[in-house]
């Protein structure tokens, strides 16, 4: 199975588990980005230090967290975190 086929199969699996399609793509994209070329994504174990950069917060992480809040927070509270500051 090549990487594309593996990715498709795994994304389908996570969607079947109830994950959002975009989220499932994120999990798999981040895995494939760390798998050495030619390695089998089903058996290759990514070393812990290869995940270290993930602890940093990027603009993309913030955008994803904002989008997820809007998607999952109860309707009444969806806009809470976009509060405008007043005196």
């Amino acid at each position, binding site marked *: 199975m090549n990487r594309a086929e593996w990715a498709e199969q795994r994304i389908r699996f996570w969607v079947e588990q109830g994950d959002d399609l975009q989220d499932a793509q994120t999990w798999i994209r981040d895995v494939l980005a760390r798998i050495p070329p030619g390695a089998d994504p089903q058996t290759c174990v990514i070393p812990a230090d290869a995940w270290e950069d993930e602890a940093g917060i990027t603009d993309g992480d913030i955008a994803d967290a904002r989008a997820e809040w809007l998607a999952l927070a109860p309707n009444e509270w969806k806009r809470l975190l976009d509060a405008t*500051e007043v005196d």
Partner: protein
Amino acid sequence: MPGPTEWLRGYLWDKTIRRYRNAATGRIVSREKVIGLLDQSLAQREGRITKGVIPFVEGRCTRNEWVSRTQTLVKREYLQSVAVARGGWDRMTPADYGRIGQRLRVEYARLQGTAQDIVDGKCSLAQAEQRMHMALGRVRALAMDVERANQPPAPEGMTRLERRLLGQAEHCDDCVNFYQMGWQPAGTLPSPGEGTICNGNCKCTLDSIQVPSSEALLYIGRADKGGPLLAGGA
């Protein structure tokens, strides 16, 4: 049942009192509501994270997938919980993101340890779920600490006091001891989830009041002014 316009109503962050207000009504959103929302978000997250532990323990997903998914879900919870405590996304500072990053480094190392333990058969499904529960408890602890640090300074002549309130949980001895200390000057008690043996299981909250400085001693060590004497009060 609120209508669509209420569902999408906006909020303001009142920087003087450091509280959310409903933009339509001007009413303050209580601390209890905000903490309740935080706990609701954490419970929802725990459900999602736990759902991912099962296929990993059962060998239906790879370690890499589990690590990737869980790290991302934990990171989002840190970001959202601290943003709730801080007053919204626009109040988040580089220091907040730096603090979250520091916590994540530790959490990610723990996660790798859990992944290895699962692979080695040293960690059952129940133990893995408990570890995830503790990880999210540490998110709560940081959010509670941020919310507390975000309190406005007491005005001239006033003193801010805090007391520990026990949440819906089995309480550890440390939390009970802090509860029994009653009102204390702000900063005396640790934030819930910090410095207690219950660690990530803590469901306590901190209550906060401002009293005239001349009357502060009347509160110290009591559940409330005029209330039952707890521990160490005069």
